[in-house]
């Protein structure tokens, strides 16, 4: 098998815009589930609502495309009812951190055996570009027409503080590292959270003066620093710029977990 065999080919072409970062994350996810040797028959993809949440509909496994923000709560029921199933949640920044924030926190606290992959495009893509809890200060959206005045959420810090066993952040540019991180997430017993920064040229890029898809990818590339390096710089007394994107494994631990297959 290869990642390709996991695609629900009769549903293609997908609905995503040209240049959207979501497809890359699906590729990396399917490469990882294939590599780890999971079977299609006992793997379930669960999502909420948003462009990102359409991903499970393109995967040839059982999949549950639920209500906005609630994917993790549905996935909790699936996993606890049948721990022999491998359950992956695909979500967006609005789905996970705004309307679904409470479910996210409590799933991390329970450390339930799910892999949660968040495609963070820092905007509400599906509904036409409204601000999200991860829209950086000053950035434009249809509901922050003068620049966002709210501080953005650091989703990895949130997951770490709430108790998840595995937490990592990458961007859609770092395909190899991302695939590895998803692989590590899938092998984690307990909650694994992988945040992926992705470009949304249609609703985020266009409003925030990225003239092309590559401009936005370049931005992510040039503004990101590996966690180890960031830690070292800070230890040496350096201050990192506000807009630094910290990448890599944020946490890997084995706190007691729930819903793990016996």
């Amino acid at each position, binding site marked *: 098998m290869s990642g390709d065999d996991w695609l629900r080919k009769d549903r293609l072409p997908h609905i995503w815009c040209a240049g959207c970062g979501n497809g890359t994350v699906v590729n990396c996810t399917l490469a990882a589930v294939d590599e780890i040797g999971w079977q299609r*028959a006992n793997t379930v993809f669960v999502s909420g609502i948003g462009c990102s949440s359409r991903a*499970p509909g393109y995967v040839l496994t*059982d999949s*549950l*495309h639920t209500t906005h923000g609630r994917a993790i709560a*549905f996935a909790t*029921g*699936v996993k606890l*009812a049948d721990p022999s199933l491998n359950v992956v949640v695909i979500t967006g920044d609005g789905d996970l951190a705004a309307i679904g924030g409470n479910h996210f926190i*409590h799933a991390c606290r329970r450390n339930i055996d799910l892999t949660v992959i968040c495609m963070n495009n820092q905007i509400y893509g599906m509904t036409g570009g409204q601000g999200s809890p991860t829209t950086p200060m000053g950035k434009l959206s249809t509901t922050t027409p003068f620049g966002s005045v709210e501080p953005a959420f650091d989703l990895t810090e949130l997951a770490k503080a709430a108790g998840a066993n595995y937490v990592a952040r990458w961007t859609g540019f770092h395909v190899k590292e991302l695939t590895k991180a998803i692989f590590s997430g899938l092998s984690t017993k307990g909650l694994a959270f992988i945040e992926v920064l992705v470009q949304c040229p249609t609703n985020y890029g266009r409003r925030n003066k990225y003239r092309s898809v590559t401009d936005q990818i370049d931005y992510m590339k040039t503004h990101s620093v590996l966690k180890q390096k960031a830690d070292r710089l800070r230890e040496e007394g350096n201050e990192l710029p506000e807009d630094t994107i910290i990448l890599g494994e944020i946490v890997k631990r084995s706190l007691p977990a729930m819903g793990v297959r016996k």
Partner: protein
Amino acid sequence: MSRVEFWQGNTACAEGALAAGCRFFGGYPITPSTEIAEHMARSLPKAGGVFVQMEDEIGGIASVIGASWAGKRAMTATSGPGFSLMMENIGFALMTETPCVIVNIQRGGPSTGQPTMAGQGDMLQCRYGSHGDISPIALVPASVEEMYSLTVHAFNLADIYRVPVFIMADEIIGHMRERIEVPDKVQLSERKPVIDPTHPFRAGCDLIPGFPTFGKGYAVHVTGLTHDDRGYPCTTNPEMHEKLVTRLFNKVESVRDEISLFETINTDSKVVFISYGAPARAVEQMLHDHPEAQIGHLRLKTVWPFGERCLSQFPNAEVFLFPELNLGQISREIERHTRIPVISIPKIGGNLHLPQELWEITERYL
């Protein structure tokens, strides 16, 4: 064979669920339903099942729907405020045809209202509360025995029709204690098997598709979006939407007389009481106190879908008297189905109608 117990209504509900094979409970504590969650928390692990206290009722019903797709009989229990929070996901269960049981031990509303007092104010909410054209099933127990037997029945109906089924009890029935004969065995139905795995949502003439349980290799896509027979989203085709929603509506509405359970007394009577839940007990007491008056009584056990056939059991009826613990919610539904005057006898605040009070009203019509 059976054994005799002296149980609280909420205990009987939980025991009924366990007897029906319920092996998943996801919920959030709320008076006056909490004893059900507590009973399930104690009993489910011993029965090889799972209890999870979620972070809110939205998560509670979501986890129940997830567990149902993983193949478990699953339930949640709540009261008004939690029931309101569940509405969106109840619509999801209806759209995705997910069997599950939702118990509402009704208290006084609106809002936080009267947490410890009885009400029947959510009877229309359970029918119409989630958006879109829907047709769920709602059963109303009037005794501890029925808290048990109707809960078992609710799981069977949920699996047969692939819908969420409500137990719309009230604080009085949930908290009162009564003698109950608990059967050793209950009758259980099963979900229909899948006929065509490539079109898992294709239904036969009964309008009900087979259930493709997760983990069995069906690779089924389940979505709350309007979908075709394969389960694939198809959201801008008017015919597709009409076909799907009409089927979901009709699979319950077309069999409403089969689903509808009721009891009748004195069917020749000119003066007929209609009731469900706790007020039925007051009516029964009044009938008992005045046997000479030969007053009729129609007690509904199924309120939704409403099977109007039950009204024709009373061919001589000249008036229907209908006490409810709300301002006349189901009285209005009855009015849609009959030319006979329906006199609503509303009562809110937490007290039950007194038999004497009902008799005084009855006397005006004798």
